[in-house]
C-alpha cells in the first residue's frame, strides 16, 4: 500500500522546488485549492503531499483581558485571528488540515533555521494534532538544488529538531512579552496622561539599538573641534608629481607647523633611505549575511533589508545557498568544482571559473565566523537566467566573492622612501600589485589605488614642488548608516541575523530616527532619556546579552524554553511596576516631545511675505485638505497661504526658493521618485523654467 507523507514547506516557491526534486520523474502533479498550491510527488512507494505555508501561520496573542499591561497570559493562535491583514493564512491552515487527514508521516521542509523549524512545528501541533510530532522528521538543507534536496531527504534524522524549535518558541515568546508590555506601557503613559494616542514601541533589542544611536548623537551634538596642521609636500620625479607625508602626521601647534613650512620651502630633498617589501594580500572570506549587507550598501547603497530580500529571492530560485547565515566558511562537504563547472557556463564568469578549475586543489579562504546550520553564502552554479537589477547585482557580488575566496593571494610591493628636507623627514610611499591573484576575480569591486614609484637612489636630489602646513580641525564621529548600525548590533550580539534590519526599519517607522545617515529625532531622544531615568534596564546591552545567552543555551540543552521565558517575566515585572508608578511623568515628557516633533514637521520655512512668521502645514478641519499658511494668520498680521499636493508626505528642506523666497519642500509618494517643489504656485521660476521653480 502506498504511504502518504505530508511535507510542509515555508514558501510556495520552495514547495514547488522540493516537490520537483523529490518526485521520481521530476514532474509532480500540481493542485490549487482556495489559492493554496500543493503538489503530489511520487517517490518510491510513497506519495509525498508537498504543501507550503506562508511564513508563520500561528502567532502569539494575549489570552483574554484588556489592552493594558502587564500581560503575562498568552497563547499561540492562528495568525489570521491575531491580525486581520493576514486573513489569507486561514486558507493555508484549512488546506493543510484537509491534506493531513490520513497521512502516515510528516516532514518539516521549511528553511533550516529557528524560524523554519518553528513554522513547521506550530503547524504540526495546531493543525495536524499533537500525535503528528512523533511521526515527523526534519529535512536539513542549505540550497534548494535538486542534489541537496535529495540528499537532505535521504539523510533525514528520525525526529524533529526539538532544541531548535524550543529556542525559536522561547525567542518568540520572550520578544512578544517584552514588545507587548513595553509598547503598551509607553503608549498608555501618553494616552492615560494626555488622551493622545500614538503607538510608541520599544523592545529588548530596539531599546539598546536606540541607545546606540542616542550615545552617538550626544557625542556629535556636544562635539567641539580642535585645530591641528598637516604638512603637505609634493615632489617631482620625472614628469609626475608625488605627494609626501611629513614624519608627524599631525602638528598641534601653529608655530611648529609654520616653522616646518618655512624650513622646507624652496629646498631640495635628499633620499635618505629606500625600502621595498613584498606582502601577500589574502582574499576576503565568502559572505556571511552581515558581510553581504555591508558590501552591498557600500557598493550599491542598498539597505540591509533590500539586500536580504534580494538574497532570499535568489535562494528560492536555487541560485545561491541559504542567506541567513553567520558563517564565513565553506565546509569540505560543498562540491566547489561542481559549482565552478556551473559558473563556467555563465558568460560573465566562464574565464574566471576556468582559471580556478585548472588549479589542482581548491582551498577557499575561510573566515573566523561559523554557523552550525549553514555555510557561508555561495552560488549553486545554476544558470540565473534574467534577473532584475537588484537581484542581478547581488548575485554578481556573491559569485565574484565566492570565486575570489578560492583565488591565490595577491602580491603587493610596498616601497617607502625617507626624504630629508632641511633636516625634516618626509615619507614617500608607493605601492603596486605585482601579482593580481584573487583581485582578478573580484575586479569590478576591487579598485587598485596603488602609486607606482620610479626607481629611486640613495642620496638622489629631488626638487620639492610644494610644501604647505594646511590647517585642519578634528571632526565629530560619523552618524550611523544602516550597515554600520547593523555591524554594531552584530558585534554586540543583539538581535538575530534575520531581525536586525527589521529593527532598524522599525526605529525609523516610529519616527525615533530619520534620514541617511541616521539622525535621532527629538522624540527618539526623549524616549531614551525617559527610559534611562526610570527603567534603564530596557536600554542596557547587558540585559539583552543575558537573554541572548539563555536563548542560545536552549539549543545546546543547558536551559529549557520554559525556564528562559519565566526568567524574562521576572525581569519584566519590576520594570513594568516602575512604569506604572511613573506613568504620569513619562506621559507628560513624551507628549511634549511629540508636540514639538509635530510642530517641527509642520514648519516648512520662514514666511517670505511678513518675514516674522513661519509657513506651516495646516489641515482644514472640515474638508481634511491640507495647505500651507503663515503662523501670523492667528494674530491677524499675515494671511499668506499656498496650496499643497494632497497626496504623499511633505518634508521641509530648510531652503527658500531662489526666485520668490517661499519654502521649498520635498514630496514623497509611494513608488515615485521624490520631487522638490517651491510651494508658491505663482513662483516666477515656474513660469520661466516650466517645472518646479526654485
Amino acid at each position, binding site marked *: 500500500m502506498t504511504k502518504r507523507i505530508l511535507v510542509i514547506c515555508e514558501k510556495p516557491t520552495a514547495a514547488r522546488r522540493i516537490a520537483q526534486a523529490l518526485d521520481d520523474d521530476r514532474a509532480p502533479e500540481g493542485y490549487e485549492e482556495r489559492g493554496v498550491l500543493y503538489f503530489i510527488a511520487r517517490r518510491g512507494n510513497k506519495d509525498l503531499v508537498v504543501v507550503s505555508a506562508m511564513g508563520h501561520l500561528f502567532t502569539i496573542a494575549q489570552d483574554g483581558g484588556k489592552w493594558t499591561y502587564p500581560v503575562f497570559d498568552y497563547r499561540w493562535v492562528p495568525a489570521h485571528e491575531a491580525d486581520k491583514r493576514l486573513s489569507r493564512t486561514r486558507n493555508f491552515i484549512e488546506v493543510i488540515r484537509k491534506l493531513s487527514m490520513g497521512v502516515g508521516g510528516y516532514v518539516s521542509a521549511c528553511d533550516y533555521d529557528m524560524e523554519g523549524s518553528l513554522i513547521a512545528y506550530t503547524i504540526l501541533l495546531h493543525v495536524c494534532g499533537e500525535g503528528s510530532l512523533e511521526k515527523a522528521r526534519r529535512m536539513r538543507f542549505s540550497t534548494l538544488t535538486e542534489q541537496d534536496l535529495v540528499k537532505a531527504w535521504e539523510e533525514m534524522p528520525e525526529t524533529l529538531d526539538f532544541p531548535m524549535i524550543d529556542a525559536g518558541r522561547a525567542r518568540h515568546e520572550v520578544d512578544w512579552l517584552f514588545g507587548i508590555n513595553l509598547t503598551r506601557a509607553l503608549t498608555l503613559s501618553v494616552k492615560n496622561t494626555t488622551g493622545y494616542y500614538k503607538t510608541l514601541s520599544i523592545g529588548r533589542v530596539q531599546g539598546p539599538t536606540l541607545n546606540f544611536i542616542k550615545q552617538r548623537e*550626544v*557625542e*556629535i*551634538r*556636544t*562635539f*567641539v*573641534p*580642535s*585645530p*591641528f596642521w598637516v604638512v603637505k609636500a609634493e615632489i617631482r620625479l620625472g614628469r609626475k608629481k608625488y605627494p609626501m607625508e611629513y614624519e608627524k602626521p599631525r602638528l*598641534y*601647534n*601653529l608655530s611648529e607647523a609654520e616653522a616646518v613650512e618655512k624650513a622646507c620651502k624652496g629646498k631640495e630633498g635628499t633620499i635618505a633611505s629606500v625600502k621595498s617589501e613584498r606582502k601577500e594580500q589574502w582574499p576576503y572570506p565568502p559572505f556571511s549575511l552581515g558581510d553581504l549587507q555591508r558590501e552591498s550598501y557600500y557598493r550599491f547603497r542598498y539597505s540591509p533589508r533590500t539586500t536580504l530580500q534580494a538574497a532570499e529571492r535568489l535562494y528560492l530560485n536555487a541560485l545561491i545557498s541559504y542567506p541567513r547565515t553567520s558563517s564565513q566558511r565553506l565546509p569540505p562537504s560543498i562540491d566547489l568544482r561542481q559549482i565552478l563547472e556551473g559558473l563556467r557556463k555563465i558568460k560573465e564568469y566562464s574565464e574566471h571559473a576556468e582559471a580556478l578549475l585548472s588549479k589542482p586543489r581548491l582551498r577557499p579562504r575561510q573566515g573566523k565566523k561559523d554557523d552550525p546550520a549553514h555555510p557561508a553564502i555561495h552560488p549553486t552554479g545554476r544558470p540565473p537566467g534574467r534577473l532584475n537589477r537588484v537581484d542581478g547585482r547581488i548575485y554578481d557580488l556573491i559569485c565574484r566573492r565566492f570565486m575570489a575566496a578560492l583565488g591565490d593571494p595577491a602580491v603587493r610591493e610596498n616601497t617607502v622612501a625617507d626624504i630629508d628636507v632641511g633636516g625634516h623627514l618626509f615619507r614617500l610611499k608607493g605601492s603596486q600589485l605585482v601579482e593580481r591573484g584573487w583581485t582578478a576575480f573580484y575586479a569590478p569591486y576591487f579598485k587598485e589605488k596603488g602609486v607606482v614609484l620610479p626607481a629611486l637612489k640613495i642620496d638622489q636630489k629631488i626638487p620639492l614642488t610644494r610644501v604647505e602646513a594646511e590647517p585642519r*580641525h*578634528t*571632526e*565629530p564621529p560619523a552618524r550611523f548608516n544602516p550597515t554600520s548600525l547593523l555591524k554594531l548590533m552584530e558585534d554586540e550580539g543583539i538581535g538575530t541575523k534575520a531581525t536586525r534590519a527589521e529593527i532598524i526599519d522599525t526605529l525609523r517607522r516610529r519616527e525615533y530616527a530619520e534620514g541617511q545617515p541616521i539622525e535621532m529625532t527629538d522624540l527618539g531622544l526623549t524616549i531614551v*532619556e525617559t527610559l534611562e531615568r526610570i527603567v534603564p534596564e530596557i536600554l542596557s546591552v547587558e540585559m539583552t546579552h543575558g537573554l541572548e545567552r539563555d536563548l542560545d543555551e536552549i539549543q545546546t540543552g543547558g536551559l529549557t524554553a520554559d525556564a528562559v521565558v519565566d526568567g524574562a517575566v521576572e525581569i519584566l515585572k519590576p520594570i513594568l511596576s516602575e512604569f506604572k508608578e511613573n506613568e504620569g511623568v513619562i506621559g507628560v515628557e513624551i507628549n*511634549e516631545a511629540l508636540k514639538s516633533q509635530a510642530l517641527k514637521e509642520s514648519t516648512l520655512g520662514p514666511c517670505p511675505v511678513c518675514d516674522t512668521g513661519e509657513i506651516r502645514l495646516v489641515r482644514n478641519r472640515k474638508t481634511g485638505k491640507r495647505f500651507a499658511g503663515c503662523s501670523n494668520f492667528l494674530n491677524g498680521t499675515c494671511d499668506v497661504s499656498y496650496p499643497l499636493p494632497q497626496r504623499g508626505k511633505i518634508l521641509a528642506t530648510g531652503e527658500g526658493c531662489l526666485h520668490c523666497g517661499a519654502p521649498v519642500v520635498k514630496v514623497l509618494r509611494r513608488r515615485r521618485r521624490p520631487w522638490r517643489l517651491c510651494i508658491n504656485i505663482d513662483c516666477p521660476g515656474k513660469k520661466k523654467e516650466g517645472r518646479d521653480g526654485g
Partner: protein
Amino acid sequence: MADRCVLCHRERRSNVEYCPYHSLALENLKSSYSHWNDAIEMGWVSFLREVSERPETGMWARDVALHELDIKSS
C-alpha cells in the same frame, strides 16, 4: 517645578546652569580650549566665537558657546 536648563527644557542639577547635555558640551568646550590655546594663543571669547562658527561644532556645544558669549558681552 524642577530647575530647567537655561538653553532647553531639560532638568538641571541645582548647582549648575545647564542640563547634563549642555554641561557636557561646556566641559568639551573647556577641554578643547586648552588645545586651541596651546595651538594658537587665544582668549576664551575669541575661542568661543571661533568654535561657534565652525561647521564641526555640535549643536549643543554651539548653544553653550553662544550663551557664554552673551554672558561675556552683557
